[in-house]
């Protein structure tokens, strides 16, 4: 059966299901299939080598009523460099990948069951800060490779939800099992893991811990501890994470501050975001597995300008200090995101 025919059947079924949905009678909220698209272009110069990186991320959300959701993300990333790195014409190719394709059953507050290929809920970055339109700095932290091998995806089942909640705090959890897979676009390791965090609502402070155990080859344990804080008084977003695995340990610390408190030109400065990040990595057992093999430190400073909440200019400068070689890393570009309903409904 052709893929477009299967897609049409899913769309028609979900529109019928959303029409039967009794949970949204008291709001105007619609449950129609949605395509969320992000386009971006990053001009990157790393150690004197220029690369041009046009990117597109397409997230498809197909609800079946208000309790079942099919979601998937496809990514198209172009990577073009000069033929001899610093001279010659630009050549390269576009990489296509399916980041995840999962079915969620939102059973109740405490249990959301997920099956399929899902993003591994490890630390802050892979699942939450990874999308192009969310990340404040375009380069992932060095320790992003911990707990997300081979490609940040698990093939299997996951339970997650809100374990306990009071007016002052809430405790969230995720627990998953992934089987080994070598299917094209769905490669995954055999592993088990979990994540839990406590969110203090008044302070807007979240503290969490991730753990993962691979069940193949070296049987590596990985763990990560993270903090996220958005004080109500200031337009500040502070995030930090420490990760450790067989191949190394390291941390990153990032603070994003919108300059809306600058007393002059508020219309301009309220759209400007300043993002410094510091990170340090120390290899263990020789490093590797997508991690540096030498001690590495990096400092980045980003400057972003938001024309709208979905359209921004991004730029950053970073300096990497490594026992192998030091390098400057420059990024400049834009990201644009829009949400497109795939079925007519109430506007």
């Amino acid at each position: 059966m052709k893929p477009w025919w299967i897609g049409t059947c899913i769309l028609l079924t979900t529109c019928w299901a959303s029409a039967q949905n009794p949970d949204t009678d008291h709001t105007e909220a619609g449950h129609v299939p949605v395509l969320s698209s992000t386009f971006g272009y990053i001009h990157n110069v790393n150690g004197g080598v220029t690369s041009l990186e046009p990117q597109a991320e397409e997230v498809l959300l197909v609800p079946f009523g208000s309790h079942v959701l099919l979601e998937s993300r496809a990514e198209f990333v172009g990577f073009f460099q000069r033929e001899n790195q610093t001279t010659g014409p630009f050549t390269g190719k576009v990489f296509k990948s399916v980041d995840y394709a999962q079915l969620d059953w939102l059973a109740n507050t405490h249990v959301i069951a997920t099956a399929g290929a899902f993003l591994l809920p490890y630390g802050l970055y892979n699942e939450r800060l990874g999308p192009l339109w969310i990340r404040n700095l375009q380069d992932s932290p060095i320790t992003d490779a911990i707990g997300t091998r081979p490609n940040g995806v698990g093939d299997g089942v996951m339970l997650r939800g809100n374990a306990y909640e009071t007016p002052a705090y809430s405790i969230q959890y995720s627990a998953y099992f992934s089987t080994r897979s070598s299917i094209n676009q769905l490669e995954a390791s055999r592993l088990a893991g979990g994540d839990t965090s406590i969110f203090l609502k008044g302070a807007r402070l979240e503290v969490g811990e991730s753990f993962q155990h691979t069940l193949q080859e070296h049987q590596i344990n990985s763990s990560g501890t993270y903090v996220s804080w958005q004080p109500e008084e200031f337009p500040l977003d502070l995030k930090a994470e420490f990760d450790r695995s067989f191949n190394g340990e390291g941390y990153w610390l990032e603070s994003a501050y919108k300059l809306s408190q600058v007393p002059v030109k508020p219309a301009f400065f309220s759209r400007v975001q300043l993002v410094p990040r510091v990170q340090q990595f120390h290899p263990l057992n020789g490093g590797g597995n997508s991690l540096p093999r030498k001690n590495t430190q990096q400092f980045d400073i980003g400057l972003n300008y938001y024309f709208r909440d979905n359209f921004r200019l991004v730029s950053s400068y970073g300096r990497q200090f490594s026992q192998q070689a030091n390098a400057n890393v420059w990024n400049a570009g834009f990201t644009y995101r829009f949400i497109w309903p795939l079925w007519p409904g109430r506007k």
Partner: protein
Amino acid sequence: MRRSILSAFCIAVLPLLLCPILLSAGTKGADPKAAPAKPQNEGERLFAVNCGRCHQPPMSISPRTTGTIIMHMRTRARLSRQDEQALLKFMAP
């Protein structure tokens, strides 16, 4: 390692923590729009608190897509059913 963690903290965090505090002290009573606006109701508060944990809260979402987007966000942010309902009432009353 401990010493470099301390210097990293000084470089990345202290200036940014001090900057808003100094700026807010200097602008007290001058421009009420400078500080983040206080949320008016429970749905708005949840919107600011929960969305802001990962990204800038989006300002424009069509009501017909709101239910689907909130389902997606409930899965990602592990929100409770009550929070989902409050967000739906706020975003698509």
